[in-house]
């Protein structure tokens, strides 16, 4: 197994853990953390693809590297916005949960 495959598998594992956390955790903050874990796995995948596309004397294909920077910025902005919403929700209600009394059943899908 070479380094690229190893990193690819690491990325896949992170995606798996993140996806599991995002679906099963009822706490919004934990969901946001799980989303970041999932994101890290995807960013690692971009790195692996850059490495596999190495050519013309470069250590890696620069296009996925450029894309991953954009993706990280987007994920950062998304996290900031989600945290701000959680905080505001906590200020308003005293508890930060997205399960309303009416739709308890809907919650585990979110």
């Amino acid at each position, binding site marked *: 197994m070479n380094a690229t495959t190893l990193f690819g598998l690491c990325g896949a594992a992170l*995606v798996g853990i993140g996806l599991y956390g*995002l679906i099963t955790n009822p706490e*919004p903050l934990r*969901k*946001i953390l799980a*989303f970041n874990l*999932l*994101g890290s796995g*995807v960013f690692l*995948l*971009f790195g692996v*693809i850059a490495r*596999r*596309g190495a050519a013309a004397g470069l250590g890696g294909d620069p*296009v*996925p590297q450029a*894309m991953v920077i*954009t*993706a990280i910025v*987007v*994920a950062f*902005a*998304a996290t900031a*916005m*989600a945290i701000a*919403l*959680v905080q*505001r*929700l906590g200020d*308003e*209600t005293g508890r930060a*949960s*997205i399960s*309303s009394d009416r*739709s308890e059943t*809907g919650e585990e*899908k*979110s």
Partner: protein
Amino acid sequence: MPAATALEATTADGALLVLAIVLPVVGILLSFVLGGRYAERIAAFLLPASLCVACIVFVKVWQSETSLSYVVGNWKPPLGITLRADGLSVAMMVAMAIVICLIGVFAHANFGSRAASVETRAPMVFWVMLMAISGAMNMIFLGGDLFTLYVALELLTFAAVPLVCLDGRAETLQAALRYLLFALLGSILYLVGTALLYGSYGTLDIVLMSQRVQIEPATLAAATLMTVGLFAKTALFPLHLWLPPAHAGAPAAASAVLSAVVVKGSFFLIVRLWFDAVPGLLSVAAGQLIGVLGASAIICGNIVALRQKRLKLLIAYSTVAQIGYLFLMFPLAADPLHLQYGDALTGGMLQAISHATAKAAMFMAAGLVYAALGHDQISELGGIARALPMTMFAFGLGGLCLIGLPPTGGFLAKWLLLEATIATAQWWWAIVIIAGGLLTSAYTFIVLSRAMGAPSAPLTLHTAVPKYQEVAALGLALLSVLLGLVAFGPIDVLQVGRPEAPMAWLR
């Protein structure tokens, strides 16, 4: 998408495409520089300007019958980014720009701000986000590569989520957070798909990809992940759970934008992905599966809508159902050997446009009813049709369009879909389309008959409803009715830039 020869150069007037994206962005920046008090007046200038640009692009594409394209910075694909306007993009661009402008007229009453007054949060956020949605939608319609489309999709989400919680109540914050979490899952799945496709083909440009794409596991996995992610953003059943609280809780103008415009963005990306980026990959089984999800959305959404007690929630569930119709075009267009490919596609896009106009009108009408009565309980609507005749007329016309009665746009869309079910011998979708129409008519008539009934107590209106708000709602409703007449006009524009023969060689 244009043929490969048209790919490499900027066409004449290609700069208009840049203008369509840049104009709203300029408006946003100016709003921050000059201060939120000016945001409304900047939007009042820029949104119509953006509509004019969309109309000019539409006319050029319609008359020349070729796509426009603009190679950004003259960096050619696969490294550079191309903006392209084909028939689908220009039709959607014009329709969404008109809807956004009329929503802007409607919103003046709720989010109007005078330059002399102090800056308040909600109006500033509303106008800035409205411009952001306009820019992001144009970018989704014009973007020529999958990563640009990812960025546009994120812009759209980040502009839509604040609109849900404009009034800052706890329920709306909760709805916004839930929407955001669904949307984040959707965008990350889309991103995985983008990475896999780049890894397989070394390009993200849609035209180049459609030439290189092969049916292999990585491509199928990528397309599936992207589609599921976009389903979550479009709120296709069973990923629709976030939609009703988010759309029903927002202020009327914001609900109208969210329901009419925002969900169409991610839907458009699904169409781009399956019909342009990876044509021929849509197998019969995959098409049927998407169709089953669409059919479930129609049936479940409509039945749940029938059981709602509040008008805005009813309309929100009706959005869930109407989104289902959009996805019926996939099984009907899944067999590339059939010549009906074009008809189902036209029907689906027309459904997107007519739903946008009708649903925006209905949400506006519901907002006016709420403002006048101070509640929107359906059982206590009695007498409102006498108090606000124009509003309820707009609601009724919107309902007719959703049911699909002639000559509305909804009729033409459903007729094209029905014709495609017969031509491709898939009668089971016809049952769903007709049953959905019956259920839609049931809840429309429940609301209308309540509204025309006698009030239980003498009706006192909380606030006087401005005439121009009623006119804006009625304008959109009339537009949805008149859309059926495009059958005699520019409906062929949807086919501009599409391959002559479907990609049968991929089989």
